[in-house]
């Protein structure tokens, strides 16, 4: 995966945007809801057995005679999990997805090295894809979202999730016409259709609806959603669209 130096410098200026409070195992730069040892005060709570004595707010105890624990936010490293769809339908835009994933990994690794680049480079298209379970942190899913079963998997995600919907120009506006036997790249199933202007228009409408449905579905679940074409320059996607979508900042 080769990026030019200018693009790498621009990546250095970016960081993953996290709307929710995150939690991770390692202490890092991110403030989490987990109470920890940073100097940023968060709130008070009643003392319970087992709390550290040093966390007791002795000022309140002096004034009110009640034991309150002073809570501070804990700074943790952001755990990022990148899932790139490797199903056969990704073939025409897989290289784009890989490069996008690599760029995101570079950004994420600036905080803490959590996404090894070789893993992304070694991905092969055509293997079954499922979204990995992420206990905490941020999940980024790069997929063409043709698999309806993906919704079920995403719903199980309890972490902040960004869905990057990648479509190839051929998917956005199929350059096909005539009587065709359309074969599904993953299942091998086929249907015969005459594809003319009407069919192409209908397809575009259905695709728009399909994307809107995903967008709404993601919105309802507080997931970031970004649709992009694999023909769009990667720099533009990273610098503009991902920032607009709130995936990067």
């Amino acid at each position, binding site marked *: 995966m080769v990026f030019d130096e200018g693009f790498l410098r621009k990546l250095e200026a970016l960081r993953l945007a996290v709307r929710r409070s995150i939690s991770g195992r390692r202490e890092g730069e991110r403030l989490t809801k987990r109470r920890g040892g940073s100097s940023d005060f968060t709130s008070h709570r009643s003392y319970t057995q087992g709390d550290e004595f040093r966390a007791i707010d002795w000022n309140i105890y002096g004034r009110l005679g009640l034991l309150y624990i002073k809570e501070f936010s804990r700074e943790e490293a952001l755990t990022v999990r990148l899932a790139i769809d490797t199903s056969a339908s990704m073939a025409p835009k897989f290289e784009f997805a890989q490069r996008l994933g690599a760029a995101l990994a570079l950004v994420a690794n600036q905080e803490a090295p959590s996404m090894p680049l070789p893993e992304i480079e070694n991905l092969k298209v055509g293997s079954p894809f499922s979204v990995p379970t992420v206990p905490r942190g941020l999940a980024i899913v790069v997929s063409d979202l043709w698999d*309806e079963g993906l919704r079920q998997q995403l719903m199980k995600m309890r972490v902040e999730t960004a869905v990057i919907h990648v479509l190839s120009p051929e998917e956005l506006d199929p350059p096909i016409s005539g*009587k065709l036997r*359309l*074969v*599904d*790249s993953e299942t091998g199933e086929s249907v*015969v259709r*005459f594809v*003319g202007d009407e069919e192409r228009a209908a*397809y575009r409408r259905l695709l728009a609806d399909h994307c809107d449905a995903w967008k709404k579905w993601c919105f309802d679940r507080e997931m970031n959603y970004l649709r992009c074409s694999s023909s769009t320059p990667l720099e533009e996607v990273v610098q503009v669209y991902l920032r607009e979508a709130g995936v990067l900042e």
Partner: protein
Amino acid sequence: MKFENPAALWGLASLILLILFSLWRQASAKVVVPSLLLWKKIPERNPPVRALRRPRWRLELLLQALAVSAAVGALAKPYKETDEPKPRRVALVFDTSARMRAGDRLAKMKKHASQLIQDQLRKDVVTCYDAAPAPRSFKSPDDTHGADGHVDLAPLIAAARANSDLVILYSDHEVEGTLPALFGAPADNAGIVAFSVSDDEAFIRIVNHGAPRKIPILLKTDSAEFRDTIPAGQLTWAHKADYSKAAFLRVAIEPADSFPLDDAVEATRLVGATSLVSLNGLYNEGLVRVFRSMPGVSVMNGELPARVAVGYDRDPGPGDVRVWLYTPKANLAGALKVEKHPLTADLEARVNELSGLTWGEVPALGKPLIRVGDKVAAALQGKELHVCVDVNQWQKGLKSFPIFWVNVVDFAQGAASGLTVVHGGPKANLLDERESDTAGKSQELSLPPATAARNLVRADLSGGAAWSALFFLVLAWLLQLRPD
């Protein structure tokens, strides 16, 4: 190319239907899409008419069109006519007379005929005729072979003419109405043309078609050999000797010519497998029994012609040897003496036995065989034997009785009618004198050019068209089976 059924060519109009049908029902092109999720929601519809204006020419359509065209062509029964000279019916008549064996001209004739068929009669209908010795027809000149005698060409040529436009005669002399291919031989033949032999003389007549010359001759029997030379210009030769005992006699001339078939003749004595003995006159059981006990001898009563005819107190019937057997009226007195003769072989040792018999006198004719005192009791005159003895005494267990009668039968067989000419040359019968002149004439065949008449030869092409249709059809089918 012409068509026997040109109306079938209207079937080519079906090509239009094929193309229209193909345009309407174009095979769908395979396109792999990432997902059918959306395409499945788009309803299927028939191609609009404007889509037909952009036909996609495919190999399948081409093959189908070719198959239809070929099938229509096959139904129209195409044929091709070529103009070729009309085949002639040619007869090759081979003169296979014995004289054609002179030299190697029979082999030359076969070779010439085979070459002729291959080079000039290839497109003609050729039939060969010969007589070996019966007239016959056949296909290959190699099947002809020489006859052992003279062949009459007239019926052969008549048969050949009846069935042919052209008759080519392979012989050594011309025959009217045929195209001669003549093969002569050197004029040097000398051969035997007549031969006769009796018990005391052999005679031959020869012909000499070569230059006058001395011809060595060899006469040979089973027991003797005689060499001589026929003087130049002499055409007969005879030799006198006693051949009455010869089983065979062979005369061979050695003229050193190119035709050895007529250089030798042979005669042999024919001896029947069985000898008939006829008994006439008084019946004597001992006499009958002794003849019946001899192998190859059958006995008949009466006067039938026989090898041995015995007359007991009566004249014998006709036979090679006739035996007069007399009953003695009085016994001869004196010593018995047996003369040496084939008829008395082995009897000399049985004089005592014979002396005990009653003998009578026979007429003193010819050669005496048995004497009693000064009288003759048995004598041979030519082939007539006279014996006067008491047979009733003789046949009562005396060994001299069967010995004598066996001698009689043997003598009769030896005295069978003379030598018989059975063949001349190694295998052939005595050749016809016409076959002796082997020189003949040589003449190259002059074959007339092919007739002006020409044939229209029709080559039927419908089979090829049908096979082509099948081929294109199978190819189109295989093309549809191929993986995308």
